[in-house]
């Protein structure tokens, strides 16, 4: 099966192409089923590849399939190759698996939308790009996927393109990503210059021999790329705005897959990161700052999706803390469990939004648990997972990260600990506002945060919320099961249960910083993690359900610590001035030089024209002067 590993990206690509040509003709439902089938097919092939890979002995679990030589230019030889090893296998599985579930969900969610088939076309293209990203065996194929997911993100965020918010958000996402891409590209150039090849195998192999400054530069630049894609500060501004897109998009792209591309990239080059521990520290610092920032902002958000968006940013920060601390396995573990519960939460929120007829403001929800039972139960499971309550998946992965942070530095652990508590707190707030309390949706609807693409003809009416169709609830249930039992992948009890760690060992093993904490320390850390989660939940309960303590939602949190505003002011003010300066430089100095050359040529030609008098005697004089000069040369240099 490994020989047809290329089928995994090929099936979504085929789905995309078929939908481009026949999408509109297939119409609703059929287009969706075709796309879902493509994605599911890819998942099946991926499972086949997994079985094939797992059947090999551990040190041979790496398969490279080269389709063709893509860019042979001089000493640069870039091939379109797929690398199937445990790390990429893991990514492939959850990209296609969760992708398939979300495709199924979208058939129900996008029901009635006039651009139904186009949505699935983009979704398939996205899955294809993401697979290229994770399966590429060199930086260029990854970059191809990187750019592809960025483009699909743009298309999908602005899917309802007539809405100003969506169009602006898409542009913002693309431009912010571009800054990250700049870092990625520079890293590629440096890599080629230092190593002579863009293959991961060559880069990782040569990592130990690179000069310190080169390795640091490449690592930092790749991290800049990761910051853009994975929405870390200060490039995090695009993700909350991206919620203007349809909810399945938020679930697939901005929770489960695309945003994890940054983490994947850093894990892929972990041997390089291993050589530059200072960069690791920097990564961890960025991670924790982002995590804390996003957690505080999430406390004050009222849009159901925005809370989850900031939560995603925060959880990504956790993953980067793990990467920075050398715990790559923990980062991947959390990436997987996060994919499960965050997708679950987003899809659940989509179900809620549909249920309350496209209302997204949580202040207009409440007491939905009896009216939307399946959504409620699955959402609660996702909530418990993200809050870090055992035995749900999130607890195990978050605990690993906390342990790694503790080993790296105590202040780092303290900050992470606080962030974990905040996570539990704001999720509790969300759950209470949506599913408990009084049924605020019964009040007169006012024109606040409106949601989906079609105008609600029921403005002014109060309709009872309803549960969603099986197309939407089935994926919720599947994801809930995964969120419950996902922890089994890597239980820390003894060596035999650390399945994911062993699975990823051939790839990440040498760079991984092993946990040297004593078992008693680990138990204490685990218990304290549970404790802070319970404290967070309890506090949330007291503030929002019991109303014993007043809610603390200052404007500075709600406004994202004024990050957006300051960026706007900077870009509009000094940024603009700088741009004007650069533009001036371009038009006067650069263009001036070019035009100056042309002008100079014209000026000198004008002067030289005078020698063409047309009179023979002048030309004869020229010949005579030439002869004299020749003799001068002989006199001075040649010697008589």
């Amino acid at each position, binding site marked *: 099966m490994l020989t047809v590993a290329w089928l995994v990206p090929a099936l979504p690509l085929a789905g995309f192409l078929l939908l481009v040509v026949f999408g509109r003709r297939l119409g609703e439902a059929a287009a969706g089923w075709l796309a879902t089938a493509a994605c599911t097919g890819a998942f099946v092939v991926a499972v086949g590849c997994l079985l094939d890979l797992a059947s090999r002995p551990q040190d041979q679990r790496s398969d490279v399939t080269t389709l063709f030589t893509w860019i042979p230019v001089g000493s640069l030889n870039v091939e379109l190759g797929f690398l199937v090893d445990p790390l990429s296998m893991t990514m492939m599985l959850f990209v296609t698996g969760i992708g398939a579930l979300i495709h199924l969900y979208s058939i129900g969610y996008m029901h009635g939308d006039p651009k139904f088939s186009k949505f699935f076309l983009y979704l398939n293209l996205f899955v294809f790009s993401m697979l290229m990203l994770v399966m590429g065996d060199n930086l260029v194929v990854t970059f191809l996927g990187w750019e592809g997911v960025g483009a699909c993100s743009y298309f999908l965020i602005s899917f309802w393109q007539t809405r100003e918010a969506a169009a602006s958000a898409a542009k913002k996402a693309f431009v912010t990503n571009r800054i990250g891409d700049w870092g990625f590209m520079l890293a590629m150039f440096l890599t080629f210059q230092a190593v002579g090849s863009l293959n991961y195998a060559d880069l990782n192999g040569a990592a130990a021999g690179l000069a310190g400054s080169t390795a640091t530069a490449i690592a930092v630049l790749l991290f800049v790329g990761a910051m853009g894609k994975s929405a870390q500060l200060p490039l995090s501004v695009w993700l909350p705005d991206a919620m203007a897109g349809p909810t399945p998009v938020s679930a697939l792209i901005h929770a489960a897959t695309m945003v994890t591309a940054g983490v994947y990239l850093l894990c892929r080059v972990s041997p390089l990161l291993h050589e530059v521990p200072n960069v690791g520290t920097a990564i961890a610092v960025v991670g924790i700052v982002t995590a804390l920032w996003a957690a505080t902002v999430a406390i004050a958000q009222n849009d159901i999706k925005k809370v989850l968006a900031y939560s995603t940013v925060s959880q990504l920060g956790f993953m980067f803390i793990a990467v920075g601390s050398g715990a790559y396995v923990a980062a991947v573990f959390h990436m997987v469990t996060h994919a499960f519960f965050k997708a679950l939460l987003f899809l659940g929120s989509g179900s809620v939004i549909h249920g309350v007829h496209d209302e997204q403001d949580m202040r207009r929800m409440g007491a939905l648990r009896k009216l939307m039972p399946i959504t409620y139960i699955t959402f609660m499971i996702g909530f418990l997972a993200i809050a870090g309550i055992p035995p749900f998946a999130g607890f195990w992965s978050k605990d690993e990260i906390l342990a790694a942070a503790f080993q790296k530095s105590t202040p780092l652990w303290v900050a992470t600990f606080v962030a974990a508590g905040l996570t539990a707190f704001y999720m509790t707030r969300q759950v209470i506002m949506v599913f408990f309390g009084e049924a605020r949706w019964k009040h007169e609807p006012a024109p606040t945060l409106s949601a989906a693409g079609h105008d609600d003809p029921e403005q002014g009416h109060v309709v009872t919320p309803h549960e969603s169709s099986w197309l939407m609830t089935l994926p919720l249930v599947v994801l809930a099961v995964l969120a419950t039992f996902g922890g089994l992948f890597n239980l820390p009890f003894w060596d035999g249960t650390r399945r994911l760690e062993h699975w990823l060992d051939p790839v990440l093993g040498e760079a991984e910083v092993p946990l040297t904490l004593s078992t008693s320390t680990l138990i204490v850390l685990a218990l304290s993690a549970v404790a802070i989660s319970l404290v967070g939940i309890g506090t949330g309960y007291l503030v929002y359900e019991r109303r014993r303590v007043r809610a603390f939602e200052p404007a500075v949190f709600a406004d994202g610590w004024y990050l957006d505003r300051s960026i706007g002011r900077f870009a509009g003010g000094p940024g603009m001035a700088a741009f004007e300066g650069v533009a001036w430089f371009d038009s006067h100095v650069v263009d001036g030089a070019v035009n100056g050359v042309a002008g100079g040529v014209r000026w000198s030609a004008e002067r030289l024209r*005078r020698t063409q008098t*047309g*009179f*023979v*005697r002048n030309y004869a*004089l020229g010949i005579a002067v030439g002869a004299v000069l020749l003799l001068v040369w002989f006199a001075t240099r040649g010697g008589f």
Partner: protein
Amino acid sequence: MNVLPVLAELRVTASWYLVLGAMLFSIGSVGLLVRRNPLVMFMCVELMLNAVNLSFVTLARALDDVGGQTAVFFVLVVAAAEVVVGLGIVVAIMRRRPGANADDLSMLRG
């Protein structure tokens, strides 16, 4: 008068002839550049050719080699042919435009 012994010892060497040839050549080239009448310009060319002939003969004597004289022979023949053709051209032009000189040829003016 003590200049007479010096004068008595004066011998003509090859260099003297060569210097004379150089002078003749320079005079010819100056004339070519200054005069406008085509026939006079031609005569200046003849001066230059004669200077070259003189140099050839001098060197033939210095090297005791008849090749120099052979060269003069050929120069003479070719100069004659050149004069014939050149004067033919001058005649052809002068018939149409009496009083033409070298400066009338200015169509190559840039």
